[in-house]
């Protein structure tokens, strides 16, 4: 029983990172109907930036801020300069360009920082059951989700971004610069992705540290519904729990395959995720 409680708490803590990563995927999917497979690589770049800043300044929190800033800038840059000109040619090319980015950034990180592991410390102590770092993970993701909700729901920028995502032409006819909104969306999404990276990265960084994290992140997004930010957060926590139980009771090697089973099972019953709503758009 005690073991079960430990697994549950661990699962929730790691689920926070999956929720954040899923959220970053959903933000971009909502805006552009595109799954950004480069998201883990952008997070990787952000976290390595944090590593370097922390090494130079000795301050974890300066590194943390650097990671979020790097995420915002890199996400915006990548959308504007690389993804947009290619994504408009075809749906498949849009997927492939994010894969290309993934390869380039992951390899680039390996070139600059090397393939060997680097230590990156947690924000807070990680000792014990439901340690301060676990609490921090859950709280920071919760706060990020609330801020995001407020941004979209209550600010003019959020209204512009939603209009641009749902109905680009109507947005343009109301003076919204749709392209700029896409860039902003990618920036914000990558910032959240960087947060996910800062939570999931420690204790050791290596260029493919996020491969498995990404699997759970995308599982969370898919299970919650790619169109549903709320679903992404719930999905992330559920996947964190599921992964923790499978690892704890069956063995960690099977966790990713368990994710596959969950995805297939959920999508076979609900092809657009658990929380998908019937589409509101009527013609």
């Amino acid at each position, binding site marked *: 029983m005690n073991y079960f409680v430990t697994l549950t708490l661990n699962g929730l803590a790691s689920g926070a990172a999956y929720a954040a990563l899923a959220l970053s995927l959903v933000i971009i999917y909502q805006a552009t109907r595109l799954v950004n497979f480069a998201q883990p690589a952008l997070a990787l770049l952000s976290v390595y930036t944090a590593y370097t800043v922390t090494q130079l300044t000795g301050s974890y929190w300066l590194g943390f801020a650097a990671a979020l800033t790097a995420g915002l800038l890199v996400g915006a840059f990548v959308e504007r300069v690389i993804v947009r000109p290619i994504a408009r040619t075809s749906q498949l090319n849009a997927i492939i360009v994010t894969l290309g980015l993934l390869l380039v950034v992951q390899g680039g990180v390996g070139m600059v920082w090397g393939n060997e592991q680097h230590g990156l410390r947690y924000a807070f102590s990680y000792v014990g059951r439901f340690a301060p770092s676990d609490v921090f993970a859950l709280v920071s993701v919760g706060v990020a989700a609330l801020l995001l909700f407020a941004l979209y729901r209550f600010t003019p920028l959020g209204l512009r971004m939603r209009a641009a995502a749902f109905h680009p032409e109507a947005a343009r006819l109301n003076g919204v610069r749709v392209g700029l909104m896409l860039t902003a969306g990618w920036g914000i999404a990558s910032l959240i992705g960087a947060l996910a990276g800062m939570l999931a990265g420690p204790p050791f960084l290596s260029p493919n540290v996020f491969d498995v994290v990404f699997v759970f992140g*995308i599982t969370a997004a898919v299970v919650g519904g790619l169109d549903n930010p709320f679903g992404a957060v719930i999905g992330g926590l559920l996947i964190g729990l599921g992964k923790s139980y499978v690892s704890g009771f069956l063995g960690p090697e099977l966790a990713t395959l368990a994710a596959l089973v969950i995805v297939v099972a959920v999508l076979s019953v609900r092809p657009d995720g658990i929380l998908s709503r019937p589409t509101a758009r009527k013609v």
Partner: protein
Amino acid sequence: MPLPVRHLLLAALGLAAVAGLLFVTGDLTALRVAAVGYTMLAVAGLQLLVGGSGQVSLGHGAFMMIGAYTMALLVLHQPSLPLAANLGVIVAVSVVAGVAVGAATARLHGPYLAGATLILAVGLPGLAHRYHQLLGGSNGLNIRTAGAPPFLDGLVTTSEWRALVVWTTVVLGLAALATISAGRLGRRMRAVRDDETAAAMAGVPVGATKVAAFVIASAAGGLAGGLQAYVLGTVTPGSFTLVLSLTLLAALVLGGIGSLWGALWASIAIVYLDVWATDLARAADLGRDVENNLPVVFFGVVLILVLRFWPLGVHGALRDLGARLRVAGSGTSS
């Protein structure tokens, strides 16, 4: 001339071309020629799945892994079986895997299918660690396969012989793929790709067609993986990473979707961009970190540039060029 016969003739021509190439270039490039061969078979299978039936799979490397491990296990545990029988067993195993994956994912669409297959690509190598007694953990399995038969001693080297074996299998596989693609199943796949609802109303069994595409792709991928194990003599989970799966799909789009020629350019790109990047890093003495990562970065950069400037891939660009030359040619002659 019936289509299968024509494809077989083309296959024989292709094999002759490869043999000629090997004769000219010699032993050193034989391994690379073999690598282009099995990679092309894998990409061609993916081509049928993605270009033919419209199902985007990010997990094609998983099928290669299944084929490779099947080959290694057969060589280790059933050493008396001839190579052809091994390849036959690999196809059978891959078909079963294809049915399983295809049936499980038949209801998934678009990004959801891509996500699920991505998870497969990341998750499957975990099995090698989980069952390390049987599959050898991260060190994988090492096998020893027969070289050239004695009567060819001195005529061809072991590497050249292996390259020829690989290409013989590959051209037969490609001929089969081309025949399927041109036949009724191919037409059904394209109908499903263009519009599932319309295809269903026209009487195409949509679910079965999608599963069939997965089965064929899996067979091609498994066969390619088996050939890879045969050539390299070693199978490790580290060779079937997510990057491999992504590279296969990316190379397909880079080469040009919708044609076997695209698969050829794709496999050449996969093998040779890697070689060139490694040579370059070594020649420039850029250090180990750069050398290890340059191939994948180089590939990614080329991919993005091709997509940016030739959205239809290398094959599309060559076709455009050909058309333009023909127009120019007819313009001057008239």
